[in-house]
């Protein structure tokens, strides 16, 4: 199964991201599993994989709009999750890999807004609430590394589900007829968990070195 000797699948799943780009991806267990299995076997750089996934999803959104059936939604989301999930197993070393976390954001947020729109009325507000919670998570990933010297706790990678886990949950909720209320509940639960972990991290004195953040400013003289 594994291409590198001596590393088991379990170890690979437990492996926490090392580079900033891997952190910014915000992968959950499903994406890591896809990356660690199929991802090892696909000799394609990660960005094309992510783009194929996102392009397919957005094409269906554009074609079907808010009239899409639950089955169509589930199929399009699954398409995105599989392609972009596989990309997590590819080394993020090619020169355009910086675009990848952004592509994942578009797929996740776009998918949630779409699901809200297919339900209609206050589900769109629920979708906004949910992506607002997610935005906190994604800004937190960047700013905590920058100002605290370390990213948010590793258990949150699993507890927050990752971008693909959340998409899967929201799709299941849609099938179960749970939105709009469920979207608000999910947004609230995520917000409470994410903000609490963040507050706790700031109350604990950090031994991590000061992260060097650079000002891009220049002296015009």
């Amino acid at each position, binding site marked *: 199964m594994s291409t590198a000797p001596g590393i088991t699948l379990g170890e690979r799943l437990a492996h926490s991201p090392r580079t900033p780009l891997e952190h*910014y991806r915000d992968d959950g267990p499903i994406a890591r599993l896809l990356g660690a299995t199929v991802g090892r076997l696909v000799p394609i750089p990660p960005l094309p994989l992510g783009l194929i996934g996102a392009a397919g999803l957005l094409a269906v959104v554009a074609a079907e709009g808010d009239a899409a059936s639950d089955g169509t939604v589930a199929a399009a989301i699954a398409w995105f999750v599989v392609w972009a999930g596989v990309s997590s197993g590819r080394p993020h070393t090619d020169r355009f890999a910086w675009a990848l976390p952004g592509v994942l*954001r578009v797929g996740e947020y776009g998918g949630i807004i779409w699901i809200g729109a297919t339900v209609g*009325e206050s589900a769109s*507000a629920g979708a906004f609430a949910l992506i607002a919670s997610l935005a906190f998570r994604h800004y937190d990933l960047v700013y905590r590394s920058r100002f605290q010297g370390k990213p948010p706790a590793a258990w949150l990678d699993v507890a927050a589900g990752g971008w693909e886990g959340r998409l899967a949950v929201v799709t299941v909720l849609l099938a179960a007829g749970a939105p709009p209320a469920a979207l608000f509940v999910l947004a609230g639960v995520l917000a409470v968990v994410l903000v609490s972990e963040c507050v706790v991290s700031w109350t604990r004195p950090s031994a991590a070195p000061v992260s060097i953040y650079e000002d891009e400013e220049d002296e015009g003289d």
Partner: protein
Amino acid sequence: MATELQSPPQRRPPVQLSGNITTAVLVATAATDDGGPAAALPWEGGTLLDRLLTQMAELGLRDIHVVTRPQFEDRLRASAERAGATLHVCAGPSEDLAEVADLADGATGGFVVALADLVVHRGALEGILASPGIATGVLGTGLGGVGPFAIRGRLARGRLVSASSAYHSVSAPRMSFLGVLKVAAADNATFAEAAAELRDLMADGPPVSWQRELEHKAEQWRLTLGRATLKAERRAARDALEAAGRDRDELPPMEPEEYARRKRTLARSLPADDEAEFHLRHAATQQDIVALLLVGLVRRGVHMGNSFVRGFFWARPLSRAGIEEAAAAIQEHDEERVRLKSAVKGADGFFTTFFVSTWSRYVARWAGRRGFSPNQVTVLALCVGVAAAAAFATGDRAGYIVGAVLVYLSFVLDCVDGQLARYTRRYSKFGAYIDSVFDRSKEYVAFAGLAIGASSSEVWILAGAMLTLQTLRHSFDFSYGATDRQAIAETPQPPVAQSPDDALGRGRMKARNALEPKLVGLEDRAATAAELREAVEDESGERPAAAAAPRSLARRILASWRVLDRIPGLIWFKKMAAFPIGERFAVICVTAALFTPRTTFIVLLAWGGFALLYTSTGRILRTVAKWRSLAL
């Protein structure tokens, strides 16, 4: 004392130094024109060294060392003893470096190493020593205004990636080093190693290749001074024509070859004061271990930050005349006003610069004097932002107008907190974090308020789309930056024994060394293409095209894009095109007050979408250009 007439003397509270700095090393090895130590030049009843020793003590540094030469010892001992500093008397740079290596080896606190003959505002020192954004780094300025003798450096993403010394050269310099180096405690081991390596290299005087580099520098300095003299000559001739009632342009232009020849002649026989200055600087640079240590750290791959001196005063007067000049020039700099001005971030956008920072700095000063902390202001800004959203949520015209005003106020407070932190030097990592997170929160809470006010499913979708677009742009910004920084960190540095800073420079050095023996003096050299271009530019005021090297399409587009920066005012359009935070809040204010939430989101999405295309195009071009240059 004269400066105190201008701004009332103010006891500023001690600042929190970053990088765990505890030790100062002041390098008093440069001589002045009368042969004495430049650090003992008089300043406000004391000496330059007294002033710096006081500044270091005020900044909270307790362990202070002064490195000097045997012939200067008598002149400096009293100052050092008064300040409780340890005097190290060394015969030459190698011994200086040995002392530094000993101090750094096993030290628990970090270092500030500075030339002891600087006149510099305390604000500039605080800028580098107290900023949490700089662990190890330098005090710097742009290329202009510091004269031809300056130590230069090159920055990449705010990181110093190459630096010069008397014996090292830097390709494509972008900044000047101002003789203040800070080493965070975490880098002490590398610092000690760098100092020890330099000590060994300098043990029998500088290596031959280093001496060649210095000779080359001296030649360049002379040529620069010669060019300045020639330009002054030409100007004087034109002035004389004008005084005689004739047209300035009647002076016939010099042929480029003639111009270059004349410049070389002048470089050989500089005016007396230029010649004296040249000799002072030439001698001083060979005693400057601060620049050597800087190169040593950079070449060992240490992450070096940079703090620009901005409006604060800085000078290195090596003579009596220089001191008088500096004493007159510092009058032009009211430190308190500079401090307030430099609290405003240099990279702000159009709306922030012209509609907010013009007055928010006075709010910041008021808040600072009343003892408000930056974090209190940040929290207040969030509260006002939430109030704005609540006003939007009412969904009526009055609510939209009140919300618009509150959004503006909230944004002003948002600028105040950063300016207050910079003004009072009360930085904290937590403060920087909540400032960043609350900024975004306020924006998205305002979106929610507008969508509630509109109470339409469509507006919620538009609000979600705008939130997605902003998060996408943010992700691109930071992911691109992270990739870029990683590439910079992984670029190997040449060893400190090598004078030029890169492989290209090595080739240049080889060519120069091969050429050198054949050249007897400056006058025998044919004018280079660069000199001829320079002559055309000086004489006609036009910038002639450089000989075009074959470049990729991506590089050509990027280069012509940068040329646009020379058009005054265009820089603001470029900044606005990237849709920075000030412009986003301005759009919310104006469209919410005058139109409907739906309009607000459509304008935000259109401008933001354009900004996404604009910034991504630039990044894709840069990525392709880098790719190509690596493949070559």
